């Protein structure tokens, strides 16, 4: 059974523990999956609303040329659009499952998105605080955000999928 938004996540303000959290993406490429992370990101839950952002210039993959390509206008366009952002409009919880509706903005394009994931109840951490976890996943169509770059395989099929999975594994620490 779903609960209301204010009960879905703990009340109050919770800020991300950046050391023990990660934000990244994965996309089918050729015969496998290409993954990357954002080293510089932020997230907070405030009064039942989740907001998050990631700095495009902090994208990390295993090749510096690919990082530069991902920051170029063919992908995230770091010069003009230095951040990706997300803001929730509703959060529903059913047991450990969580469903978050909201809007994501990439390269200046804002689109509705639905995030699915798991939530854990707050625990007391070893530092004298309280924290809870969110493990989130959303699938977006990158061409809706101005990122339609591709390269054909010898078969003529595109090498890079249009569907990109964005992942966030967040530990959120109680503030105040």
């Amino acid at each position, binding site marked *: 059974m779903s609960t209301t938004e204010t009960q879905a996540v703990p009340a109050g303000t919770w800020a991300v523990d950046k050391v023990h959290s990660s934000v990244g993406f994965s996309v089918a490429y050729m015969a496998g999956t290409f993954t990357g992370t954002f080293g510089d990101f932020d997230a907070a839950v405030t009064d039942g609303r989740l907001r998050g952002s990631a700095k495009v210039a*902090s994208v990390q993959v295993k090749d510096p040329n690919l990082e530069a390509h991902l920051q*170029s206008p063919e992908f995230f*366009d*770091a010069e*003009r659009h230095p951040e990706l952002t997300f803001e929730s409009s509703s959060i529903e919880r059913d047991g450990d499952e969580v469903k978050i509706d909201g809007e994501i903005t990439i390269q200046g394009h804002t689109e509705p998105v639905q995030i699915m994931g798991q939530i854990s109840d707050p625990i007391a951490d070893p530092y004298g605080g309280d924290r809870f976890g969110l493990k989130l996943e959303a699938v977006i169509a990158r061409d809706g955000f101005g990122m339609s770059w591709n390269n054909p395989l010898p078969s003529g099929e595109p090498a890079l999928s249009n569907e990109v999975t964005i992942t966030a594994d967040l530990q959120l620490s109680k503030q105040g």
Partner: protein
Amino acid sequence: MRVLGISGSLRRDSHNTALLRHAGELFEAEGAEFTIYDGLRELPIYDEDLDVEDPHDAVARIRAAVREADAVFFATPEYNSSIPGGLKNAVDWLSRPSLAESALRSKPVAVIGASTGAFGAVWAQAELRKVLGASGARVVEGEVAVGHAMDRFDEDRRLSDESLESQVRDVTRALLAETQPQQPVQLAA
């Protein structure tokens, strides 16, 4: 606003260089400065062994010219259904030694073209846009295909076709619109 023009054809009476000069007048009418780069023939063939901290003068010169420009406007002919080797060589020098250091990185660019055939270098233009995008440039949409180029210029080597002139003007304006002064951000390597 400083726009650098690069012609893919080195020939003295090149249709593409004439097209570029005409485009230059249109840029100047919009209040931009326009300069045609004339050093493509001095560039050595790209060789990573030559891509050192103090590179060949011609390499240093074209990289500086592109870095100092607010935008770059290309006019290309079509050789064997693609871009001329000399122009590709110039883009290769500009995009290296790494994409993070590319002189074309986030640089607004636009491409037009002329050919003596019927199709006006459309394949070369598409190829050049692809190559520039892969080199980190901000490629502006728009294409002008000046086919049968030998019949498209008057005795002053200006475009004689008003419709084509209008198309070129649209692309110059699109490029300038993309070249509004931006507050640069620090891009990670």
